């Protein structure tokens, strides 16, 4: 260990899911892949390349920007622990 100097990058020991009360649920059928949720997500935790908008629930803090900005209103914020639609 030689810290204060020369540490690695991208070391993520703890997830951020604890920040969250609500989590986004995407209606994949209604989604038009405008990618606005993807670019606005502060965490960058929405993945778009699979053709579906997939949220990394380890790092989603549940801010709700994606739901607020979705032009089709196809993202809903669901309380953690409750059944996703």
């Amino acid at each position: 260990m030689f810290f204060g100097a020369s540490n690695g990058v991208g070391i993520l020991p703890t997830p951020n899911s604890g920040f969250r009360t609500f989590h986004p649920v995407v209606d994949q059928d209604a989604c038009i892949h405008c990618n606005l949720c993807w670019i606005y997500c502060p965490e960058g935790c929405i993945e778009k390349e699979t053709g579906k908008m997939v949220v990394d629930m380890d790092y989603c803090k549940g801010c709700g920007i994606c739901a607020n900005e979705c032009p089709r209103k196809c993202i809903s914020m669901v309380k953690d622990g409750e059944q996703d639609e």
Partner: protein
Amino acid sequence: MSKKAFLSANEAAAHGVRLCRPDVVAAYPITPQTTLVEKLADFLADGEADFRYMMVESEHSAMAAALGASMMGARTFTASSSQGLLYMCEMLSYVSGARHPVVMVDANRATATPWNIYGDQRDVFAMRDSGWIMLFAENGQEALDMVIQAYKLAEDPEVMTPVMVNLDGFTLTHTYDLVEIPEQEEVDAFLPPFKTSNKLDLEDPKTLCQTVGPDFHMEGRYLQQQAFEKAKEKIAAYDREYGEMTGRSYGGMIEEYRCEDAELVLVTTGSVSGTTRIVVDCLREEGKKVGMIRVRSYRPFPKEYFDSIKDRFAAMGVIDRSLSFGLEGTLYSEVKAELYGGSAKLVNFIVGLGGRDIPKDLIAMMYDKLDRMQKNEAEEEVQFLGMRW
């Protein structure tokens, strides 16, 4: 073949810097450091050196730029003095904490106010705990040699700590003296190109100067302390190695002058040491058993050395060109702490503040006071000498 030249200590230090082939120099002018950074500019203008010269808008930025450059793996130099050093203070601990081997010269000068541009060591002692190795040169030749050794020391993988080379303002920085300038090949052989893993790297990205919480901070400080312990051996080793190459060796962290059978010694730093030598020689001719101990390395402090001489001398005086208000001379406190429990009688002489000359008769008076102390006459522990009243 080395070359002889008639140089000020600032110019000599600049030659030292040139010979170390820095990649980046960042500096801001301040009296009495200015002629050093001017000389570096001359080297560039004359094609005698090849580095990027950042003429920044403040000392704070000079040290910040030095940090940034060192983070990219550049050998980096800066220089300052007095208020400029105080203005750099914040960045000093960034550079040392992140273990970047920047080398700087500090032209020691009084700190305001009263505004005073003259020689005094309160600027460097105010930076005591900045995490920098602090060395003091006695003359221009040593300034040149010390800059070269400073890079070797700073960049040692077991040290990786920045080094500040201290030159007494004006008394050294503006005094011309005969200086031997080593050949580039000699210095290249002594000081290899700077290689470090403590830098940013596109192939293997790094985080430098990281935020650290209470859970890890102490460990980092412990490692710094270990580096300073390691530096103690290295200062002596590199001084020897340099001496084998150039014939000039200075004794490592400490230089003793005519101490073998001495009973009365003065502890000095920097330029006053040279004047003290003359006084020692004169008094020796009179049969007085006097000597001098010159502190070359203030950080790391030669603790073990002072521990070892606790009972060796009858009386010891410490010359301070600085003081810690409400206590005593800065160097004296530390020497006294290491001599704790020993038999030597101790006294502290505060002299030469703000450029006040330290003439030979004043130094002779100090030895006279030591002589009286040896004879059990009382002397005040902390004395201002050479005062108007």
